[in-house]
């Protein structure tokens, strides 16, 4: 016991020395031994992700040796766990949530603490539009430390080579690539519509490009109806792909029964059934026994621009919020805004940081670098719209938006009918 304590003291001493040495000019995090206390953190990460996050925590305790941090993984049940912990009056000090709606609910209940003091640092590191993800009615509550880029299209490199096509940069080029692939006898797209959310992501990516951020926000808050012409235009744009059954691997019926991971596996295969899949940056992770190598086997390109739209990213992320205010908890959130904290996890892989100060050289491979820098460099970042809806409308398999989009794939000609269906469901959910 005593031995371990001495080793620890030595380590702390050494690290304090290192920290003192490299703090200063580069604006990196400066630790302090003055801050003491214990903080508990809860997030969804388990397994390898938990190890990576633990490394981030270790980076923090190196700087603040007198703070003890304990982490609990809530897994997929994080939301109900947190809600019941708040109800029971015993929430963790800090939690990372994936749904801004959950954060908003906690803010309205007064369960989480504002962190307006950190606002400037958050804007400096992440930019205005990512910072706003953690704000409720102008008050800053959260830091989106980990991001997800859903404006990505994955493709099978061999299929692209066989048809002699290059990753497209515009929507027209995308359609051209699709028709060339078809001429080569290769089905262009694999879509997994089983539950419908992959199509909501496609819609959001199209909509932010055709209608712009402002209308995206208005539609998100149901300030304009889903029967708005802009929605119908976006649906018509999507129908350019989904309307032609020969674009879809296995045709319409099969697509409606294909689960998302299977739709990705159809592209990430040595005998691909389709050349492209429109899905977020997590795609490689959902294929079990992926037979292909990154870059040479599969690769990724950003969602193309439509009518000259600038780089926009629709994505998600984990937002750190604070249930109990303490100097230690404040220090932790501040630490998360630094590039140093992001670098620890980024270097370990499986992580995209929205932090603009992070040097993208730390990412372990080209593909993560491409998706992550797309996230950090986006001119406009918007949180996944369906995640911002009341869950009855935007997050329920077989209901609301998910259902409307599966119906749209089944019947892409009926744009007016689908828009009306969405508006009805939205009106009911927003009450």
């Amino acid at each position, binding site marked *: 016991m005593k031995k371990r304590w001495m080793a620890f003291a030595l380590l702390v001493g050494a690290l304090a020395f290192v920290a003192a040495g490299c703090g200063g000019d580069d604006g990196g995090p400066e630790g302090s031994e003055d801050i003491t206390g214990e903080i508990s953190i809860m997030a969804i990460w388990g397994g390898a992700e938990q190890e990576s996050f633990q490394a981030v925590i270790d980076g923090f305790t190196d700087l603040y040796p007198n703070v003890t941090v304990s982490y609990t993984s809530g897994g997929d049940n994080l939301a109900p766990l947190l809600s019941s912990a708040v109800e029971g009056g015993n929430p963790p000090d800090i939690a990372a949530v994936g749904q801004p709606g959950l954060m908003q609910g906690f803010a309205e209940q007064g369960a989480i603490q504002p962190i307006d003091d950190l606002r400037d640092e958050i804007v400096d590191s992440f930019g205005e539009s990512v910072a706003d993800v953690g704000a409720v009615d102008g008050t800053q509550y959260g830091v989106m430390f980990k991001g997800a880029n859903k404006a990505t299209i994955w493709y099978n490199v061999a299929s692209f080579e066989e048809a002699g096509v290059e990753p497209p940069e515009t929507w027209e080029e995308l359609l051209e690539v699709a028709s060339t692939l078809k*001429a080569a006898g290769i089905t262009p797209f694999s879509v997994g519509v089983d539950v419908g959310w992959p199509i909501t992501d496609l819609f959001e990516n199209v909509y932010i490009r055709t209608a712009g951020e402002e209308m995206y926000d208005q539609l998100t808050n149901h300030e304009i109806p889903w029967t708005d012409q802009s929605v119908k235009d976006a649906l018509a744009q999507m129908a350019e792909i989904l309307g032609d059954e020969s674009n879809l691997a296995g045709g319409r*019926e099969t697509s409606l029964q294909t689960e998302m991971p299977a739709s990705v596996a159809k592209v990430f295969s040595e005998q691909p059934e389709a050349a492209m899949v429109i899905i977020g940056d997590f795609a490689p992770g959902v294929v079990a026994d992926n037979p292909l190598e990154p870059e040479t086997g599969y690769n990724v390109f950003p969602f193309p621009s439509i009518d000259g739209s600038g780089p926009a990213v629709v994505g998600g992320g984990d937002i750190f919020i604070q249930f109990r205010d303490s100097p230690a908890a404040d220090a932790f959130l501040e630490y998360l805004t630094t590039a140093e904290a992001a670098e620890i996890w980024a270097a370990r892989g499986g992580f995209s940081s929205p932090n603009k100060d992070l040097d993208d050289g730390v990412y372990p491979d080209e593909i993560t670098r491409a998706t992550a820098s797309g996230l950090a460099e986006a001119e406009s970042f918007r949180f996944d719209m369906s995640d911002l809806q009341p869950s009855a409308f935007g997050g329920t398999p*077989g209901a609301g938006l998910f259902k409307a989009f599966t119906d749209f794939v089944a019947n892409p000609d009926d744009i007016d009918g689908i828009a009306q269906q969405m508006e009805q469901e939205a009106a009911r959910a927003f009450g």
Partner: protein
Amino acid sequence: MSESVSTAEAPGAGLPPQDGGPGVFQRHWTTIVFLGPALALLAVWIVYPTIRTIIRSFYDRSGDEFVGLDNYQTLFSDDTLVTAIKNNFLWLLVVPAMVTAIGLVFAVLIERIRFSVAFKVAVFMPMAISLFAAGVIWRLMYEKDPSRGTINAGIAVVKDAVSPPGALQAAQPSTDAVEVVADGSLVLETPLEPGSVAQLGLTGIRASDVRDDAVQAVVPEPLQGGITGVVWRDFKPGGGTPGVLEEEEVGLPGVTVELRDVNGRAAYTAKTNPDGTFGFEEVEAGTYRAAIGAATFAVPYAGVSWLGERLITPAIMIAYIWVWAGFAMVVIAAGLAAIPRDLLEAARTDGANEWQVFRRITIPLLAPVLTVVFITMLIYVLKVFDIVISIAPGSVQDDANVIALAMWRTSFGGVNDFGLGSAIAVFLFLLVIPILALNIRRFRREV
């Protein structure tokens, strides 16, 4: 034994001697010790949740506002919930009867076959897996694509043997010069006369699907008094120019080309060479159209959409019957073994045929067992949940919905409306009660 021990120990332990030995208190004490834990568990896990659910069903989503019977009204007016109720009644009508009938048939038949134990084990085996796992298995078997779904693969083997897929399944004309006619064959627009050269460019053919002997396509020389032409894969990496035969574009060998006369009848046929060329020598004067018959483009069997909105409920029922038929068989077989043989023998001696013995002797004697199976299945089918959620893809869960699934989806699946969810649970509870009551009465009678 324990009494003698306790009386023997009592004085030693310094307890005051009890009047009348092991008395009323001690007997109650034993009852409490034995019943207590069970009662406590029942109270916590059954009684309290039931009461709480009933109360909750009269409140709105947030639980703050009393809404009376509104949730129950929604239950019978919301489309998806009404579908769930309808589906559940369909389940009640079909499944218990089918399971009992199939179990009975199996039970009777296995009495008469050799290796009956092996058969019993095989039929009973599905009971050993959880319904959820069974659902996952069936979901895979029901996949539409014959290269994934076992059932469609079986059908495809038969179908494709009867009508084999063509050599160029998904081929399409590369330009408007070739049109697809109603019967599925491709016809060159321009009429041909002796001396003409036909060019039929096709796309949509995978490079790997082209025969190995294919070589660079060439446009053949015109032939005096005959018609020549070429069928080629009008594609090179990047696309090339449709309709123009370019370098790197290969011929399609082995394709049957027809020359159709003015009546649309195939007057001549020929097969293409490795460079895609074909030729008809000595063609009678007149105009012809070059065509490739529909058989060349016949697509392989695409599979039945078991998991589509129309077949999903029957498909799940089949899987469910597969799981439970074994249970029914084993229970009924036990009942069958208990039937006195002499009754059957007597009937046979009296001249009854096997059907009459079965109908008039076996079934009436088995009635109590059949009822148990049937009622058990009624209760299980009312509560059916896990197999539905594991087989039905999200896109058809509305069509496959049943009451228990509707309850789960409403309460936990994202809608998070505990008021309405509780109302559905109460409705389900009310449906189960009469069957439970029936069952308890039967127990009483048997005791």
